Structures are given as structure tokens and as C-alpha cells.
């Protein structure tokens, strides 16, 4: 007899040392590999083209440096427009996201069917890329920042309404029940407990929304939806790489500042 401290000898089957991947894992892996190989061959990654690319990059850099700072004034103006588009778009997007999120959360929706519909709307807004929204709105309202703002609103709703709803669904039920049990109605529960409890997380999500929107707003200019993107694409096509570099530097500086400020705020509220 083994003493209680000693491990006993087991004669039965041992637990396996390695877990074999499941059939599902195999299917996913093989599928991924197939796509990967097909992709590599389809874009024919050629050594020669990559080497030529390095040469062209050198050419770009030599033409871009030193950056042409003489157009810094107008470029800053376009950057400001980009920033405006992002802020205005996010502000409206966030305001519209709150009711949509309340409709799509299990604990606040008036009816399960409403929830499904609201979730569907959010999913569509999220799935369509912002560049496609921009193309649609340029066609609808014409070139300029208005199209960009509308595109950013759509994109922000897709992003914020989803995360707001997820947060609202995981809020603890206690405070809501406390308000209900004093005789408070649906409105009191939402304004009194649910929105206050979700507020820090919703603010953080909105700040992510701002960061995301600034990057989108830069890109949206490329299809004529306002902002600095137009300037960048015309500088590139006129081979004014020194101007392009100035634009890129301004963009990077603004994005870095916005992200720093936004993460500082987030750290304070969370």
C-alpha cells in the first residue's frame, strides 16, 4: 500500500500528453493554407519587382527630402477641415448611437423584434466600409466635407452602437432593480442607472471613435469627400513628393496628438 502522500501507480489509460487538434481546427487550417498559397501565386511576388520597388522608394525619398514647408499654411487649413469632419461626424454618430444601442440591448429594448432590427441596422452600418459610404454620399450630396461627415457618421454608428450595446448588456442588474423597486419606470431606469453605469465605457469607446474617424477622414479626401486627402493625392500625382511629405508629416503629428490626448482621458475615466 502506498502511503497517502505517495502518488499511486495508475494502470489504466493515461491522459494524453498532447491534445490532437479537432477536425474543425484541421479544416480551418487547411483552408487558410490553401488561400495563402493561392494568394502568393496570384499576386506573383517577384524578386525583381521588389528590388525595383526599393529603388523607387529611394527615388521618392530623395525627391521628398527636404519637405516643402512653404505650403504649410494651406495644408494646415486642410488638416483643420479634416479634424472638423472627424469631430462633427463622431459627435453626431455618438448621439445617434445611444438610442440605437438602447434598442439593441436585451435589457433595454422595448421588444425582441426591435432588438433584432436595431442589431441588423448596426451590422449593416458597420459592414459597409467608410470609403463606400463616402462614394455613396459624394454621389448624393456632391464633393466636399459634407459627404465625408455623413460617411463618418455612418461608420461611427456602426462602431459605437455595437460597443455601447455590448456594454449596456453586461451592466449589473442591481441598480436598475433598485430604481424599479422604488416605482421608477423604464425612463428612470435608463437615465438613472443604465446610462450612468455605462458612461465611462461609452466615453472611452467614443474616444476610440474619434481616433478612428481622423484616420478615416484623411482617407475620405481621396474620393473627394473633403479634407486633406485630396491634397495628398494631387501632390502625389504631380510628383510633388516634397509637398506630399509635408502633408504626411502634418497628418502623423495630428494623429499622434489626438491619440495621446484620447488615451490620457481614457486612463483618467476608466
Amino acid at each position, binding site marked *: 500500500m502506498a502511503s497517502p502522500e505517495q502518488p499511486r501507480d495508475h494502470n489504466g489509460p493515461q491522459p494524453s500528453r498532447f491534445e490532437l487538434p479537432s477536425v474543425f481546427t484541421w479544416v480551418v487550417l487547411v483552408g487558410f493554407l490553401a488561400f495563402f498559397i493561392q494568394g502568393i501565386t496570384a499576386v506573383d511576388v517577384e524578386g525583381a519587382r521588389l528590388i525595383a520597388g526599393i529603388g523607387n522608394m529611394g527615388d521618392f525619398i530623395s525627391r521628398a527630402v527636404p519637405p516643402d514647408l512653404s505650403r504649410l499654411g494651406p495644408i494646415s487649413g486642410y488638416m483643420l477641415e479634416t479634424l472638423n469632419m472627424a469631430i462633427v461626424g463622431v459627435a453626431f454618430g455618438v448621439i445617434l448611437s445611444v438610442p440605437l444601442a438602447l434598442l439593441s440591448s436585451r435589457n433595454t429594448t422595448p421588444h425582441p423584434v426591435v432588438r433584432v432590427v436595431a442589431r441588423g441596422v448596426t451590422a449593416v452600418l458597420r459592414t459597409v466600409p467608410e470609403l463606400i459610404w463616402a462614394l455613396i454620399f459624394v454621389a448624393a450630396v456632391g464633393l466636399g466635407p459634407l459627404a465625408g461627415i455623413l460617411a463618418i457618421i455612418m461608420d461611427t454608428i456602426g462602431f459605437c452602437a455595437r460597443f455601447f450595446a455590448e456594454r449596456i448588456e453586461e451592466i449589473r442588474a*442591481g*441598480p436598475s*432593480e*433598485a*430604481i*424599479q*423597486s*422604488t*416605482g*421608477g*419606470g423604464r*425612463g*428612470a431606469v435608463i*437615465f*438613472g*442607472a443604465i446610462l*450612468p*453605469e455605462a*458612461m*465611462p465605457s461609452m466615453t472611452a469607446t467614443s474616444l476610440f471613435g474619434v481616433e478612428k474617424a481622423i484616420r478615416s477622414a484623411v482617407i475620405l479626401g481621396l474620393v473627394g469627400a473633403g479634407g486633406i486627402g485630396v491634397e495628398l493625392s494631387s501632390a502625389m500625382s504631380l510628383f510633388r513628393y516634397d509637398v506630399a511629405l509635408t502633408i504626411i508629416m502634418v497628418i502623423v503629428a495630428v494623429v499622434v496628438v489626438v491619440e495621446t490626448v484620447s488615451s490620457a482621458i481614457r486612463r483618467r475615466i476608466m
Partner: protein
Amino acid sequence: MTVIQVGNIHKRFGKVHVLRGVEFRIPEREGAVLLGANGCGKSTLMRCMNGLARPEQGSIRVHGTDVATCGQRKLRGVRRQVGMVFQNFNLVGNLSVFQNVLYGALARHRSFFSVAAPLASREERDYALHCLERVQLAHCADQRADQLSGGQQQRVAIARVLMQRPSVVLADEPVASLDPKAAREVMNLLWSVVRAEGMTLLCTLHQLDFAMEYGDRVIGMKAGHVQVDRPMHQTDRNELQSLYEGNVRVDETPSESTTPLRKAS
């Protein structure tokens, strides 16, 4: 006069038959203690009593209104008369203590905005401060609720009940997460408030000492039934101890009742 009258309550969650014909009554101004082991159905009963859960069968009359079957409008009326104190306080953590107390006034106002701290009337604001003074936390009025200790948070919850001015208070393990000193403070406060305001109280506890010291009446539950129901001076520690022995949990005890149950509306 009977304030709370619970008759033949049945409640199931899926296969688990949680409440199996619970019956008792509590007269006006009585401080009753509800005892029973973990999982015997105490919280479920409490939730049924203010309509947070609906039983499938039976009646729960609070001042004559049957909470088990009444419509939403009547239910809100009853809830205004019934204050709740929860084990985990259920304050809105990132709002001020003052705002949390003001929420008690929802019992008197239709609109949420008349209980929001910036918009509330002078009278309600003064009264909220008065309620905080009664739980000795007026100096914390502007602090965030979640920055207070557990004992303080429960005192804020009691101030919220005072603000509500109900005639009935249901307290579900109000001191279960507090240290012995804070627990005694909260018990003293809760009972003195209830006595002073002439409220009727049903309070779940896990401490027999507290139960025997404070309770006027004891209602003991075991596996979904009421096992003990008598004035505190007619019971003894052995009888209360027996509530925690044998098959006590409803999810481990098969139900013998086979009566067909009416569906909850």
C-alpha cells in the same frame, strides 16, 4: 392589520421548483426575520414580493393588492410603498451619494427629471440631505457612491429607503457582506428607522444571533417551504438550527407537488 399576506406561492425556474406553496402573513409594524439555508428560495420569495419575479401560482397581497397578478400600473403603485435593501447595496456606483438618495423620491414623481440632483425641487433636496443626516453620512453627500465602504453604502441605501417613505421594507441579507462592526451598525440603524417610521419589515438574515436579537417574528424556510413561523420568543436556537440541516436546497430536493400550475401572466 395584516400588511403582507403570502398565500400558496409556487415559483419554478426551469426544472427547479423553488417556491413550493409558501404561506405566511405579517401584521403592521412587525419586524419579521426570514431565515433559511443557501438556495432555499429566500431571495426568490423577496423578488416575487415586489414584482421583480412573478410566481406561477398563489397570491402575494401587500396592503390588499395582489402583486402576483396585478398589472404594471398597480405594480408600480405597490412598489412605491415597498422599500428594498439589497445585500450588495445596488447603488449607482459612479453617481454621488446625494443623487442615489434622491432616487428614493421616484416613488412620488412621475418624471425622472424631478429626482435628478440638478433639477430636483428645493424640498426634495432638503429632505434627501435630512435622510443622509439620519444615517450620519451628510458629510459624504458629494462623494461617489462606490468610494464608500460597504457599511457606509448600506447606510446610503437605508437613506434611499427613508427618502422613499414606504410603509413596507424588504431587506435581503442587508448585512451579509459587512464586517461584524458595520453589520451591527446597519442592523441597529435599519431597525431603529423601521420602528421610528412605523414600517413593516421582512429581513433575510444568515446570523441566528441577529435574528434572535432583533426579530419580532421568525419565518424559517427549508427547501421551498415555510418550516417555522412564530413569534421570536416562542422559538429557540435548536429549532432555528434545524433549518440548516438535511435537505435544504431546492435544486437538490425533488418536488413532491404534482398540482398543475397556472401559467404566470
